[in-house]
Structures are given as C-alpha cells and as structure tokens.
C-alpha cells in the first residue's frame, strides 16, 4: 500500500514536500486551537469560524497555486490564509484587531486578505464572493494572463443564487477558475440533505456543462492531485471545474456554537478517526519520507511559531482612530471631496461650522 501511496502522491516524493505539507496542516490546526483559546479570553472579537478538521482540504487545494494565480475564500478563512503562506503573526494580528493585521485591523476574522500572495479575501456574505472570483478570472482571461483562480466555498453556499449565476458565467465564458466546495456537511446546523435537493454536490456542475468531481477532503494527497489537475485544465484549456472536497469540521460553526445539537457523537467520532493530519503523518512515516521524530519536532516548531505570533499580535498597536475614514475610498481625491460637504453635514466626525447663528 505504501508504494501505491507514493505512486499517487507527489507530496511524498521527497521529505521536503512532505514536511512542508504536514507543517502547513499542523500550523492551521495549532493556530486555530490557540485562536479558540484567545477568543474565549476575549482578545478576539466578532465571529470566529475555525478550520479545524479542514486542513487537508485547504492545504491540498492551495498547494498547487503558482505566483500567477489568485485565491478567494469564504469567511472561514484562517486556514486559507495560512495555507497560502500569509504570516501567522499578521493573521493573528488581524484577529486581534491590530494595525499590523493583514487588513490593518479593519477586516477581522472573516476578511483576511493578502494582496502580495494574491489571496483576495475572506468574505462574509455566503455565496457573495463567487461572482467576484469569476470577475477575477475574467480579468486574467482579458489580459491573456497565465493565472487561474481558486475559489473556495461551503456546501451551504451552493444554494445561493450567486452560486448559480457565477458558475454559469464561468462556464459560458470559459474562464480559468476552479470552484472548490469544502463540503463539511453542514452550513451552521443545517445538513446538506436539509439544504440541497441533490446531495452529491459535485453533480450540480453538469447544469453548467462543467466538469465536477468529488474527492476525499481529508486526504491531502487526493485533494492535491485533483486540484493540480483541474487547475491545470482551467489554466490551459480555459475549462472551469467544480471540485468537491468532502470533509468535516471538528468544531461547531463558530466558537459560539458547540456543534452538538445537530450532530451525533458517533458521527463526530467517526470523522475524528480520519483526522487529515494523522492520516498524512502516518502515511509519510509509512512511506519512509518522515520519521515520527520529524513529526514531533515539526509540531514543537509550529507551537513556538504560533506562540510567537500571538505574542507579536498582542503587543502590536491598535489602528489609530484618526484613520477611521482613510480606507472608505481608494481614490486619494475623495477626502477633499467629502470635506466640501462640511456644512452641517454628518459626514465624518468634524466639528460642524455652526454658521447658522453667527
């Protein structure tokens, strides 16, 4: 079996690759565990959606992206950001609402971003980013660029009108984009069967004459193989695809949700027995590319890295309230324009000119 694993898994061809993949997954896991802890300590506000359990789906699909490619995620985006290589300290900084955060403290958990790595968010309206990702693919096509877009979404997002319009446009216009459904089987407390008339989500691609397929989302090799292949086809043949990665979130929908009312302990246990990190680590050891010791060292390294990220984030400055209005518009001239509206205007926090009684 180990030889067949090796055969199917470029990730196990050398120790460096295996270590990188495992490290990314362990980093996400550890980062999220500490995030949960920091959240309960009220150092993080807002909603907080963890990617624990979905590490293989994230890392496997994002690993094949090149410098020319773009990435879009949903609001459950910590794992996405880490998988694409964003600095954990800057990601944690964002969760802490610090000026050093990836979005300068303006975005928070749901709106991570990393323009340098072409990770274009972190979006909070379910399904809303799908047409936007299509637009990014359109821009690549318009410019005859080599890039392709990977757009993640949840199983719940597939029931939004935006999904339908986005997939039809992508297929109709032959755009370089792969939609990755991270099917973790629930949208909040709603199972796929309660939400989707066709529960084999990959099959819905056919409605757009698009290729669809499902892989085991806890098997990082399988995800990597499928994503590489579909991204390549999208890039070279301008044929978009829908890749369903079947996985499970070990935690509730958000830190505020215990995640137990709508799921049985058996179901949770069965999925935990197929922990994507354990699966890959075991396989790497079995294939002889990593030792148990390597894995232990790696885990310790990651622990330190995440602790350092937290420390760095904690000591970073908050954004300056004086900059509240600075990012509302991208156009530098706008500040001046809006300032002209000063007369008795509630724009901004300016001291109003009480010229009515002077």
């Amino acid at each position: 079996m180990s030889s067949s694993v090796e055969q199917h898994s470029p990730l196990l061809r050398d120790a460096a690759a295996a270590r990188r993949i495992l490290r990314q997954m362990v980093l996400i896991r550890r980062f999220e565990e500490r995030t949960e802890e920091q959240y309960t300590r009220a150092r993080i506000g807002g909603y907080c959606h963890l990617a624990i359990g979905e590490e293989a789906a994230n890392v496997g699909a994002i690993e094949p992206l090149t410098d020319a490619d773009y990435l879009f995620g949903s609001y459950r985006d910590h794992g996405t950001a880490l998988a694409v290589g964003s600095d954990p300290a800057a990601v944690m900084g964002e969760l802490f609402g610090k000026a050093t955060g990836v979005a300068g403290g303006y975005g928070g958990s749901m709106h991570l971003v990393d323009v340098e790595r072409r990770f274009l968010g972190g979006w909070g309206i379910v399904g809303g980013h799908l047409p936007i990702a299509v637009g990014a693919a359109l821009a690549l096509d318009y410019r005859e660029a080599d890039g392709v877009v990977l757009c993640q979404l949840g199983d719940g997002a597939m029931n939004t009108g935006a999904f339908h319009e986005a997939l039809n446009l992508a297929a109709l216009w032959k755009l370089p984009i792969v939609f990755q459904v991270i099917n973790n089987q629930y949208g909040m407390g709603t199972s796929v069967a309660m939400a989707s008339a066709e529960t084999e989500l990959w099959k819905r691609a056919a409605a757009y004459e698009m290729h669809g397929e499902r892989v085991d989302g806890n098997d990082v090799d399988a995800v990597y193989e499928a994503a590489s292949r579909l991204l390549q086809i999208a890039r070279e043949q301008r044929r978009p695809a829908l890749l369903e990665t079947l996985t499970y979130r070990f935690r509730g929908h958000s830190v505020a949700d215990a995640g137990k009312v709508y799921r049985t302990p058996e179901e949770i246990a069965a999925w935990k027995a197929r922990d994507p990190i354990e699966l890959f680590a075991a396989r790497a050891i079995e294939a002889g590319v990593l030792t148990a010791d390597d894995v232990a060292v790696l885990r310790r390294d990651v622990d330190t890295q995440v602790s350092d990220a937290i420390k760095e984030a904690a000591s970073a400055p908050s954004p300056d309230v004086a900059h509240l209005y600075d990012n509302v518009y991208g156009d530098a001239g706008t500040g001046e324009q809006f300032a002209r509206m000063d007369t008795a205007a509630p724009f901004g926090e300016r001291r109003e000119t009480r010229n009515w009684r002077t």
Partner: protein
Amino acid sequence: MTYREALRRALDEELERDDNVFLMGEEIGRFEGSYKVTAGLWKKWGGKRVRETPISEEGFVGAGIGAAMLGLRPVVEIMTVNFILVAMDMVVNHAAKISQMFGGKINVPMVIRTPGGAGAQLTAQHSQSLEVMFAHTPGLKVVAPSSPADAYGLLKTAIRDDDPVLFMENLILYNQTGPIPDDDGDEGLVPIGRANVVRPGDDLTMVAHSYTVRRCLTVADRLSQLGVQAEVIDLRSLRPLDVDTVVDSVRRTGRCLVAEEGWSTFGVGAEVAARVHRACFDDLDAPVERVGGAEVPMPYAKPLEMAAMPLEDKIEAAARGLLRDCGVL
C-alpha cells in the same frame, strides 16, 4: 422578560392563535435560531410551522410572498438585516408592489423579522442598519421596537396585519429586559404607526428608534443631572411615520435631536429633521441636531468600531452642543 423572550412569546402565541401563521428561515429550527429567538418553537410546533431553509434568502422570502398571496401568514426570519440585500428584489420589487400592481386584488400578509445593528465587531458586512431603504418604499410597513413590550405587541400586530411588514430588531436589544403588559383585553397589541413618548420632558426632544432609544434614555438621565429634562420619543414605526407625536413635543420644547444607529446621510433622521423643521418652523430655537453612525463601512478593531458608533457620549455631546447654542447650558 427579555426582548428575545418577548418575541418568542409573540411568535408562540400567534402560532397557537392562527393555523395560517408559520415561521420560515435559516437555522430557526434544530439550531434554535442564530440568536435563539425561536428556541423551542421547532420542538413544539414541528417542521411545518417552523420551517428551516437553505441559504436562499431570495428563494424563501419569495416563497413567503407566494404563501401570503394564498392567505397564509408567513413570518420570515432573515438572520441579520445585512443578508436581506440578496432578497432586496423580493422585498422592494415584489412584496411592496403586489397589492397595487394587481389592482388591489391580492395582498401580502407577511412579516420579515430581522436584526440589525453593530457593536460586536462583526465588521462591514454584518453591522448595518438599513431600515431607511425600506422606510422609503411605499407598499411596505416598517417597525423597529426598542422594548420587550413593544417587541411583543408590535410583532403580534404585524403578524395580523394584511400587508408586508418589515420588523427590524437589533442584536444588542435581544438581552434587554422589561415587562410586557398583562392582557387587559387588547392582548398587549401595539398599533403600527404610533410613536411613543418614553420619557417626558420640556427642554429638549430626543427622537430615536430601536436600540438608540435606550441610548437616548441614558443621555436624558445624564442631562437631568444638569437640570435639563429631555423628552425621549421612540418612533417605533418608520413607515408610517408618526410625525404628529414628534411635532407636538417639539412645539413644546423648541429643540430637537434625532439619533440613529445607521448612517445619518439620507438616513432616518433626515426625514424627521425635514419634517420637524417644516412643521415647527417658528417653534425651533435652533436647527434640529442629527447624530448617526460614522459614514464608513464598519471596521473591525474595537477602538475603530467604538469611534464609528453613535454611542451615548456622542449623543450627549450633540445634545449639549445644541443646548449650549440655545443658551440653556
């Protein structure tokens, strides 16, 4: 009783009273509601009366409209008001238009319940107060209660109303406590379209709706320590808008401040101010003062969010400024 419980009781009682009433929305069943308003109702009433939906706001708001056209009385929950933007076509182009467009032959007895508001660092896409978009639209009715009693009474009225009612809740209000009146024959119903003087006073009229009413009450208490008695008016309903109650007050006080959680510009306060200025042209000592959220998509970091929100201090500062301008302080 909390505001949340008041809503729940109203829903429960209306489900009991009328077989045509049913609830529909995301996570309102097994999950007990994202903000637990519907907790227990699915267990009690089952999936037919408490219908869980996929993430398809346009679809299920539309389904609510169609069911209402056939005489059911759907109470649709939109998890937060921000998501109603994907169903905007259903609300503004459909629900609001049907009665007029079909010559009065069909009406749409539907309620859309949805909380708005900010303050929990939910950021730009989850912190809006969009009620003015609906208040602007003929064919809709829009209410926004600030107390458990009003939440209870207005929700029951809205469910029994024969038209589409946008029922605007507020995330921070859910834990607000207060009594709900004993049933003395009127079932605690609160009519749509009547403002409420929640605090009497002769020196300043403060006008608000939803959670901002609570903020104004706090400010009024603070001002009373300076010897200024502010009258606080809870609009309760934005469409129809009860201008009379506000005007009666301003004629007496000569001063008016309108506060709201949403953006001021083209906001609720603009309409109130325009009307007060007109009706009280000779009564006002100073122009109507407006306070609202900063004109920015809500940022995440706590200091930024606090700076963007129309918190008590900001309202108080505006009130003091106004009183100073009038020579009262």
